[in-house]
């Protein structure tokens, strides 16, 4: 229809420039148009008094508009309008036809596979039509761009495991530098495993003015499918820890139905629960809690059991790696007076094989009673005053102890313990705690996640009931019941606290997980915050022990809460060496960049350390690489490596200084080939449209592709000629010349002013 009315393809108008071929100046045209408009307006206005009353209103304006449009159109035609457009010279340009041959193109939606649909679209006359005007080069895109002689070659090669449109186009752009490529035609479903097309590739095509026409295949929305978008779980965990994984997914065709969400370690089901699927296309988030189990590298599989009639079952599960560590974590608990909370915290943690409490309790004015010490010398002189005595702990718990108990040097050390060493610090409520212990007026007030009240008498030996905040309902510290709503109810039913302390106001950035109510007053109970490399928390009570004594013997609430709180306190406390990779899961691409943060014994950046990564992989793969220091970040080291084979890799990063070992860390990653192609299997039209729009091409549906050979000629790339397309003889002009006076005549008749 467009070409029927306008004579030329749309691309002519999209890419061409409007010119006036008539010899008279343009300003004359403008002047005449304005004069015609004004003259017609004067004429109509002067005749209005004699006209019928029916047209002495806006109807007169319509009549003027139609007359003016006709006059303006006639005047424009006198100036001979035309479009000047660049056109590819016949037989002198190359059209690169790139056919996506990734695994997702093997999906059969619509009777044939996407690859077959692409071949059919090309075979149906498009290739021949292109061939008549241009040299056509066929390419197969499967992560590496390869030229093929004919379409049949697509059928003989096995489908690739990955699609990297960006990489393929980049390769093509490089090739185009030496060839007169006039345009690119990409036939694809838009599935790309590498995260899309980078700006460099797009700008390369733009700078060479090569339009990329995209032809999209595949259903834009799969009618019956459940797909996991992501599963977020901590990459490191302590043995026997309770882990929370957040799984996000979406579905189509199963809204309101039940499905089973599970996490497996190998074949062993760690946890699972039934979920109700949300509305079609809506991203749904669910949390699964499970035990990390014994130490070792875990490959966890999060999956939703396939539903009847599901078209793609391979996108129902994702894998994540978790390194479960068995290294012991020690918490230094300083308590200023014997109290029940001290005893019951110790008892709650006794079953923990990984986390242990080393405590010092001031039993009398002249005696400190130590428990959990490794040797008789530990804490023999009281609270540590030296880095080497304090920093081996992973966390500190400060009970009912006034701040003046610590020397200025010890206070500075506590600050550095959190900020520099990255340790955890928990303040408990008590009669010598928080504001009543003078902590708010000390240099350690910065560490607290709350602004303490500026007064004493904040500790009360009165009952307080507890409740969770919305954040706390879904937090690993306060999670007593897996279901968040059930968790909120469980907390409401907990026995009242024996005492409470006014903790003041949470600081910006702090997170209030639980609150308590005494009388009509609601106050923060458990507040957490990240500080420097570490984390701090306030639990504004010394009376959680009632949760142990006042509930049935078999109830484990008290133990569970304290184990979760103390594990949170120590889990992320780093060692002297912390190794990391940007992503533990490498999909179809083995390139990996290691980073390591290396600290000396005082936990200061060790810029002069010697850092090595020792890698063990599948089929006996072993490598040892030196990591190079980052000049912009002292203590940070990097190394790049490529995992050649699919499988799991274990890497141990060691740091030494003058033959002394500073520390070591272990991380794991995995290369998985052919997995990413199972996801996002619907057509990614957005990506294809973006690519064509950015490069001056056009997105085509397969049924429209027969018109491609006509439009593709209008390109400024390759060898072109500037062609002038006159517009005066377009059918639309003729129709307008008829329609405008006809419309005026009809209106006049209707309004009775003929």
């Amino acid at each position, binding site marked *: 229809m467009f070409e029927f009315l306008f004579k030329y393809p749309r691309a002519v108008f999209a890419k061409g420039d409007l010119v006036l071929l008539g010899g008279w100046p343009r300003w004359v045209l403008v002047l005449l148009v304005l004069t015609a408009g004004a003259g017609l307006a004067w004429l109509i206005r002067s005749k209005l008094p004699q006209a019928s009353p029916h047209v002495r209103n806006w109807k007169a304006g319509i009549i003027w508009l139609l007359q003016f449009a006709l006059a303006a159109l006639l005047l424009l035609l006198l100036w001979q309008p035309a479009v000047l457009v660049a056109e590819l010279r016949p037989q002198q340009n190359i059209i690169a036809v790139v056919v996506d041959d990734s695994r997702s193109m093997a999906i059969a939606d619509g009777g044939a596979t996407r690859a077959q649909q692409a071949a059919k679209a090309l075979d149906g006359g498009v290739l021949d039509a292109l061939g008549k005007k241009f040299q056509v080069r066929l390419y197969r895109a499967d992560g590496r761009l390869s030229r093929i002689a004919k379409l049949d070659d697509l059928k003989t090669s096995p489908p690739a495991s990955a699609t990297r449109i960006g990489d393929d186009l980049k390769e093509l752009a490089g090739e185009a530098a030496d060839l007169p490529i006039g345009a690119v035609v990409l036939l694809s479903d838009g599935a790309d495993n590498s995260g899309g097309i980078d700006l460099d590739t797009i700008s390369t095509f733009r700078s060479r003015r090569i339009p990329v026409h995209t032809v999209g295949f595949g259903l834009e929305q799969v009618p019956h499918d459940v797909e996991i978008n992501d599963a977020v779980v901590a990459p490191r965990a302590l043995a026997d820890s309770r882990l929370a994984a957040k799984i996000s997914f979406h579905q189509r065709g199963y809204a309101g139905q039940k499905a089973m969400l599970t996490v497996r370690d190998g074949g062993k089901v760690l946890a699972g629960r039934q979920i109700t699927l949300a509305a079609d296309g809506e991203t749904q988030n669910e949390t699964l809690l499970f035990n990390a189990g014994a130490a070792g590298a875990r490959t966890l599989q999060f999956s939703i059991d396939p539903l009847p009639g599901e078209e793609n079952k391979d996108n129902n599960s994702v894998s994540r790696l978790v390194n479960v560590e068995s290294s012991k974590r020690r918490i230094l608990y300083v308590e*200023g*007076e*014997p*109290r*029940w909370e*001290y*005893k*019951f915290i*110790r*008892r709650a943690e*006794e079953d923990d094989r990984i986390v242990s409490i080393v405590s010092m*309790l*001031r*039993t*009398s*004015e002249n*005696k400190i*009673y130590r*428990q959990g010490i490794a040797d008789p010398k530990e804490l023999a002189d009281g609270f540590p005053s030296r880095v080497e005595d304090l920093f081996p702990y992973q966390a500190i718990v400060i009970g009912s102890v006034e701040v003046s108990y610590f020397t200025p040097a010890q206070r500075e050390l506590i600050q550095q313990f959190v900020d520099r060493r990255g340790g955890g610090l928990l303040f408990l409520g008590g*009669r010598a705690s928080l504001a009543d212990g003078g902590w708010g007026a000390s240099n350690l007030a910065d560490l607290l996640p709350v602004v303490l009240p500026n007064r004493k008498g904040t500790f009360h*030996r*009165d009952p307080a009931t507890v409740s969770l905040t919305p954040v706390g309902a879904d937090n690993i510290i306060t999670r007593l019941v897996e279901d968040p709503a059930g968790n909120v109810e469980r907390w409401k039913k907990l026995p009242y606290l*024996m005492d409470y302390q006014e903790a003041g106001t949470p600081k910006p950035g702090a997170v209030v997980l639980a609150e308590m109510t005494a009388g009509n007053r609601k106050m923060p109970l458990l507040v957490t915050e990240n500080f420097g490399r570490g984390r701090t928390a306030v639990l504004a009570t*010394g009376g959680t*022990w*009632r949760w*142990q*004594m*006042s509930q*049935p*013997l078999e109830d484990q609430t008290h133990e569970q809460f304290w184990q979760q709180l103390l594990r949170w306190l120590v889990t992320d406390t780093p060692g002297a060496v912390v190794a990391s990779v940007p992503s533990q899961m490498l999909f179809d691409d083995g390139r990996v960049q290691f980073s390591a943060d290396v600290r000396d014994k005082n936990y200061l950046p060790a810029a002069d350390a010697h850092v090595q990564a020792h890698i063990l992989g599948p089929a006996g793969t072993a490598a040892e690489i030196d990591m190079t220091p980052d000049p912009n970040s002292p203590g940070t080291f990097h190394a790049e490596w490529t995992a050649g084979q699919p499988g799991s890799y274990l890497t141990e990063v060691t740091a030494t200084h003058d033959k002394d070992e500073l520390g070591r860390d272990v991380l794991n990653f995995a290369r998985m080939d052919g997995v990413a192609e199972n996801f996002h299997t619907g057509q990614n039209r957005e990506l294809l449209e973006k690519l064509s729009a950015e490069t001056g091409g056009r997105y085509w549906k397969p049924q429209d592709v027969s018109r491609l050979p006509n439009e593709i000629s209008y390109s400024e790339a390759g060898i072109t000629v500037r062609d002038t397309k006159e517009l005066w003889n377009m059918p639309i002009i003729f129709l307008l010349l008829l329609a405008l006076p006809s419309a005026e005549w009809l209106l006049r008749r209707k309004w009775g002013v003929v």
Partner: protein
Amino acid sequence: MRLLAPISALLLLGGLSTGLLAFQRGGYGEDEFGNAREARTYYSGDENGKSEYSWSRLRYTAAGAGGGGYGYGRWSSWSRDYPKADRQFLIALKRLTRIQARPVEQVVDLDSDGPSSIENFPWVYAVQAQTWTFTEPEAKRMREYLLKGGFLMVDDFHGATDWEHFMNGMLMVFPDRPVEDLTDKDEIFHVLYDLTERFQVPGEQYVSTGRTYEKDGYIPEWRGIKDDRGRVMVAICHNMHLGDAWEWADDPRYPEKFASLAFRLGINYVMYGMTH
């Protein structure tokens, strides 16, 4: 009418007797916290009954005492040496440790709920335990109290017969757990004071007789029942009378060495109960 005068005299006598008893005992009963009213009057203004630690004395039903055994009469064996022993011990506890202790005792039993529930007081002291009896629910509650983290100290029972009767009750609480001798290696004897030199602590009869034992309890026995982790849950002081030692510590005739050991033992037991 002739009977009016004797009846009036009888009523008057009864009223006077009751008033005298009430005056002597301070008007026992409990407030909303389960505290003895007399105690609060005596220590009015001090601590307001809210402290970290409350010395808790177990009130139980004594065997053969009938209804009277569950009260404050002279035959009520649970209240032997009460409350002077308790309060003198608390004076020492507050003086010698950093424990914030309420200066008056707390009476607990195995039937009450609410603020005076035994679960709110994880350390409890019982005397004359050879007379205690438990119903099945009481025994279960005591067992669970101890397994959850409570601590029981028993004192002032002597000889083989008393032991047998004590065990009748104890076996209802723990039918399968053995009673072990506590040795010098047990932490309970070192938690604050090192108590490796222990001897029999006699009751106040020592002042008049010079005899350190009662009945056939010639040899002092420090025994205990432990939980699965080896922590002492029940500390048994057999053939000694620490309560009397605390009560008579201010009597110049009662030897200081007995009182001193009794205080140290009691303090260690409290400290152990608050740390293990």
